[in-house]
């Protein structure tokens, strides 16, 4: 994965979604919803229509213009979508997928195996595969015995969950439109594109030949881009929009108390203070470990995320199998412990403050929580400056590893623990920040141990415990809290909101009461 972790496509999904505190129960099917025009406020302009370049900026359109082969329920149970059935070979080296009959692309072309093959071809291409490319690494080859069947062969036996993740990730693109998919959507989804005004928004209309019965409910779907969270809130309150998608937690808390419906999906992000352990004082382990105690996690969660989330000291959401609450206690905010570790580092005061904290100036929460850490550092005698950068300038510094320390969220936090390595700071090889060879071999070994733990529950548990221990010991990434992403705030007229495993926006079930 080469994109920002926040924008990552969450690929696999193990059963999760336990406690989404604000989530409402799914609407009863019996509930009668009316059609109309659904107006949605979003806070980001979409990048393009390529479903293989999925990131948070186009989370709001992908599930409305396209369908994937299978879907997960919010609880992580696989469901048929464009694939009506899938058969995993007993040796787990191949899967056979049966395609749904009677599905057509927006152009009118029927869905057949050729488009799925073209989609696989694109995903496996290092240039065109984008976010899907790394996931395709397990795939050896593919074939289509007939128009309705696709067989995917793997290089080695693959766990069932990983196969399902791949199917959930595969979004068929029409073969003849695959080269222009960035500018012209070529999917089978419940809505078709009407028009787009760059920087302002997007207008979709219901796909009359959609294969799911009685869906979509609304005839028109209008997205308006707001640059300000407050402006989007005002638009909702004044009735100019019906839904805000992916607004701030703070606004959501306020709007909820004002009587609006708030839905938070199962996908979470964890904010991580990333440390470049190849630079300056951070080469010193004891110095790094002090940062475990320098994070005022409760303050960060409250100021940055309006308290929506949990404080964590490990990159796992509470739902993750590797989650261990004891670490949060043992590595709580404690300036005295931090001072002791700093003293133990043997670094001079001048060496300790010889770095700047990179800050994402485009993200208000990042600016705030960085100032909280800056203040904590000031209290232990490390006065540092913030290096605030905007937009692309920040992203390139973040991904290029051109920083000493920075806050950046990571995804995949409730999935199989080794999935955390999809985030750049946690990569075990070709890590853009820490480079090769990896400066923390204990961590690389711990990840390998988790991946190799195929024995009993005790062995798995031991491998997780080992990973947690290594993470706080090496301290090159200091998680602070989990938080919500893809929040949906809706007016009370709106019903039928469906939560999606990765918090993508699904409009086809939404209607007016």
């Amino acid at each position, binding site marked *: 994965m080469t994109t920002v972790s926040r924008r990552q496509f969450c690929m696999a999904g193990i059963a999760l979604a336990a406690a989404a505190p604000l989530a409402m129960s799914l609407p009863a099917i019996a509930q009668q919803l009316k059609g109309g025009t659904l107006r949605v406020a979003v806070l980001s302009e979409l990048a393009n229509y390529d479903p293989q370049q999925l990131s948070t900026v186009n989370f709001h359109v992908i599930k409305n213009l396209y369908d994937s082969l299978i879907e997960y329920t919010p609880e992580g149970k696989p469901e048929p979508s464009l694939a009506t059935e899938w058969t995993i070979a007993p040796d787990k080296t191949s899967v056979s997928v049966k395609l749904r009959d009677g599905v057509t692309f927006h152009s009118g072309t029927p869905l057949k195996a050729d488009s799925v093959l073209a989609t696989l071809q694109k995903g496996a291409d290092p240039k065109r595969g984008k976010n899907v490319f790394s996931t395709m690494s397990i795939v050896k080859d593919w074939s289509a015995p007939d128009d309705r069947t696709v067989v995917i062969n793997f290089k080695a036996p693959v766990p069932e969950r990983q196969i399902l993740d791949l199917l959930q990730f595969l979004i068929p693109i029409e073969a003849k439109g695959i080269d222009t998919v960035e500018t012209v959507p070529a999917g089978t989804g419940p809505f078709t594109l009407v028009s787009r005004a760059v920087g302002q928004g997007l207008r979709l209309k219901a796909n009359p030949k959609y294969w799911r019965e009685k869906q979509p409910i609304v005839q028109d779907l209008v997205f308006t881009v707001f640059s300000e969270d407050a402006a989007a809130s005002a638009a909702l309150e004044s009735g100019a929009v019906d839904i805000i998608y992916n607004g701030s937690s703070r606004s959501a808390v306020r709007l909820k108390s004002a009587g609006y419906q708030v839905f938070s999906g199962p996908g979470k992000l964890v904010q991580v203070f990333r440390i470049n352990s190849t630079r300056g004082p951070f080469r010193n382990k004891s110095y790094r470990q002090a940062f475990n105690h320098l994070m005022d996690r409760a303050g960060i969660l409250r100021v940055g995320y309006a308290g929506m989330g949990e404080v964590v000291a490990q990159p796992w959401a509470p739902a993750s199998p590797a989650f261990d609450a004891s670490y949060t206690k043992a590595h709580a905010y404690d300036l005295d412990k931090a001072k002791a570790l700093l003293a133990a580092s043997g670094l001079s005061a001048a060496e300790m403050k010889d770095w700047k904290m990179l800050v994402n100036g485009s993200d208000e929460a990042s600016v705030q929580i960085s*100032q909280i850490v800056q*203040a904590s550092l000031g209290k232990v005698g490390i006065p540092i400056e913030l290096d605030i950068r905007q937009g692309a300038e920040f992203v390139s510094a973040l991904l290029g590893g051109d920083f000493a320390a920075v806050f950046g969220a990571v995804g995949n936090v409730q999935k199989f623990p080794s999935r955390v390595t999809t985030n750049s700071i946690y990569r075990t090889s070709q890590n853009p920040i820490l480079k090769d060879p990896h400066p923390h071999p204990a961590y690389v070994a711990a990840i390998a141990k988790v991946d190799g733990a195929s024995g009993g529950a005790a062995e798995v548990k031991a491998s997780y415990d080992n990973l947690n221990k290594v993470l706080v010991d090496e301290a090159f990434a200091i998680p602070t809290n989990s938080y919500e992403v893809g929040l949906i705030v809706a007016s009370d007229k709106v019903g039928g909101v469906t939560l999606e495993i990765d918090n993508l926006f699904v409009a086809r079930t939404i209607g007016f009461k």
Partner: protein
Amino acid sequence: MSAALGSALHVLRRLSARRGTSFSFAFLLLVALAAVFADVLPLDPLTQNLADSLMPPSASAWFGTDELGRDILARVVYGARTSLVTAFGAVVSAALIGVPIGLVAGFFGDWRDSVLMRCIDVLLALPNILFAMALIAVLGRSQAAALVAVGIAGIPNFARIARAQVMALRQLDFVTAVRSFGGGSSYIMFHTILPNALSPLVVQAIVLASVAILLEAALAFLGVGVPPPTPSWGEMLRTGKSYLHEAPTYAVLPGLVLTLTILSFDTIGRALTALLDRHEAGVPERRGR
């Protein structure tokens, strides 16, 4: 020198006679004193108290607290220092660069005039904010960068006014007299012409100070001003606007101080222009913002 001081006092007295300008003077004096003596006041703009964030105005924090629990009044006071230092530095550097450019262009009036004034026109054609942001993108965020960016935006005004003044003055007899007894060009420009062109330039400096404060605040508001945690009015507006629902005073009070400061500079500049208009011709046109 004593005569110059006397006439300055005279102008001050005349200005204070108006109610609007005397209020403006008083307010600016208050802001300036606060900025200068911020350190001796019992105010701390940096210490966070996360438990007491976004508090409404109270006896302990007259302007309330911000999202990190910092005292907003303290940040307004220290923000005055940021604003005034940036504005003052920008105006001075704009004058130091713009005035000589205008002097040379107006005095010689030959190819030097054409070349310099075309450069000034180019500078004038660039939108201030955009140019400042581009400059900060290159220089990085710092008070010095903001100062330079705002200062460069002010150069054309000074250059144009200095040029107009020189063109009007260079034909006057006392300038000819100096030239005829052998005064060199730079001697004439800086010793003979400049002292006579000073009043419109001073008015321009005051008007520009308000523009500079506004521009500095705008840059901070756009997130390219002085980096946090250094307090800045524009930065407080930027952050405060997100809390308009929870803590309206967070953005409103710093905004009010900013507005009053700019209005005060403007009022004084306006009154001074009117006063000088009666004394001499050639007062600069006020460029709209």
